[in-house]
């Protein structure tokens, strides 16, 4: 009995480190502040420059239907929806996945780096002085040339791009446009 072939490994998704760091920091600060205030309220002491009387006075003079209360409620609910979505929805993969021959190897390259490498490969072709890339799924390469005879140049660009993009797990469709250099 033969074992099934291993499934191609994929690059891990992000772990939302910035969102988590900010949320954890703010939550820790809020909890520390709440603990200090609760202790001070229980002991009827003045702490951290906040007067217990000022807080209770604010509670007595503010009504539930005050715009500030409504705004705070809506803001908390919106931030809550955002954090809930960040926790439940899978984060994006920040890299473009490469198709490795080894199923246990997951490889990826950041899209910006891939574009830099592709642009460098295109500008390395004889006669091409500059190249601009647009689009993701449908990639358009606009190459600038100073040559008068551009026979075969677009095909060379297409082939170079195809060779570099053949690495990708899902290579985009490539369209090549030639632009003559202004003299």
């Amino acid at each position: 009995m033969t074992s099934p072939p291993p499934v191609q490994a994929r690059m891990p998704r992000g772990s939302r480190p910035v969102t988590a760091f900010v949320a954890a920091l703010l939550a820790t600060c809020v909890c520390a502040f709440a603990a200090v205030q609760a202790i001070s309220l229980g002991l009827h002491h003045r702490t951290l420059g906040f007067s217990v009387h000022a807080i209770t006075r604010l509670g007595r003079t503010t009504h539930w239907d005050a715009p500030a209360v409504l705004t705070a409620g809506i803001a908390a609910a919106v931030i809550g929806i955002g954090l809930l979505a960040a926790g439940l929805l899978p984060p994006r993969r920040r890299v473009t996945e490469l198709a490795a021959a080894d199923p246990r190897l997951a490889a990826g390259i950041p899209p910006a780096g891939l574009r830099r490498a592709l642009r460098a490969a295109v500008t390395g072709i004889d006669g091409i002085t500059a190249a601009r890339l647009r689009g993701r799924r449908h990639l358009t390469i606009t190459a600038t040339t100073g040559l008068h005879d551009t026979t075969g140049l677009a095909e060379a660009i297409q082939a170079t791009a195809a060779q570099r993009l053949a690495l990708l797990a899902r290579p985009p469709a490539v369209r090549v446009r030639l632009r003559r250099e202004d003299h």
Partner: protein
Amino acid sequence: MRRRAARGNRLGLALLGLALLAAGAALTARSRGWYGGPAATSLYPPAARHYLHAHPWIWPAAAAAAIIIGLACLRWLLIQPRRDLLRHIRLDTGQGTEPGAGRTTLPAAALANVIEDDLAAQPGIRRASAALTGSPDQPQLWLAVTTDTQADPGRLLSHLTSDLLPGVRTSLGQPDLAATARIITTRRQLRPQPTLASQPLTRRAAPHHDQPGHQRASRQPPDPADTQPQQQETSEGRR
């Protein structure tokens, strides 16, 4: 590499979001007068004050709850920079039940250094870092490789799949070792590597038209077969 932090982040963000959503919805509903009496009453009415005076345990209980939740948040904060790195890798698979059976371990940093040196010797590679995570019995390899702009990621991928990973797997006795490689292309200029320069590197070596003696790529598309012998030669040379 940060599996524990990723799990903790998902849970922490979901719980915090749920708590904020519930509190915000309750506050909004109370402010609109949908429950809890008329909305024109104050937040801290005399009845609430009398209730708190009659139950003095509420403030210490609230302080204790805030401290417990705060400590959980602090722990969440402290796991953020932590990476689940392995210190040692177990090389033998013996259970240690037989008399005299031993256990062989290898420092993970030593293996990581060898891998980094191997990758750094490849053409077009500026920097490489390797790390091992997982369990000592079932490690996982993480690679971050910074290449020159003109380096061909395909050659690097080919080196990983045909040379480096099979060698590491054989050395560790882990035929199923999983690996993750992140290839970063630097924005900086090409590092001069006259002896190890790959085909795309040589093509880009002279970017100015007016310099004599420079080589430019022909209009013919590069043939992957052209680069293959050179790569094999490099690999053979290292062995």
